[in-house]
């Protein structure tokens, strides 16, 4: 039961990677990475149940947050050209 769910999630990851490779624009790639992150969260959660280790769910939880922050940071970098300036640069610049 878990293995079928895990298999389907792995197929989604493969589809996301194909979109990441083929994506014409930059934002398709960010979308594919975001989708890959979410399906990794599901994969880890299901894997935690397959190997009967409840600790995996904490990993899935942290990974969900990290993939969100990654997407936002990447978007901020491409939108403003940099991830913000430190105090020294801003005062002296």
């Amino acid at each position: 039961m878990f293995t079928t769910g895990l298999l389907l999630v792995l197929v989604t990851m493969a589809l996301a990677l194909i979109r990441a490779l083929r994506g014409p624009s930059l934002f398709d790639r960010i979308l594919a990475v975001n989708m890959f992150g979410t399906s990794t969260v599901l994969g880890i959660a299901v894997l935690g149940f397959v190997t009967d280790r409840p600790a995996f769910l904490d990993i899935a939880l942290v990974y969900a947050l990290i993939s969100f922050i990654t997407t936002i940071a990447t978007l901020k970098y491409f939108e403003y050209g940099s991830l913000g300036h430190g105090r020294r640069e801003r005062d002296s610049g």
Partner: protein
Amino acid sequence: MALLLDVLSWICLVGGGFFCVVGGIGVLRLPDFFSRLHASGVIDTLGAGLVLFGLLLQAESLDVALRLVLIFFFLLFTVPTATHALAKSALQGGLEPEVDDDGGASSNS
């Protein structure tokens, strides 16, 4: 009772996996970036929801169930924000959504 839980969680798990694959295929085949955003939303809401609910039925102890619910709520809050930020920066980045103005109701200005 246990059999019912097993059957129900099997259906939810495979159904969630199925919707994940449907979202993945949608992201591959849809022509425009903004319609692909919709397809990736299918995965996060329906796929993740069903898979996590299927796992919830199999959770033996309370803390495992609590963690699953917590994952689902984090996903529920973070993914729409990420999708919104993605769409906003895509619009500013110069991607135009394909709007077919064949004289339809929306474009008879």
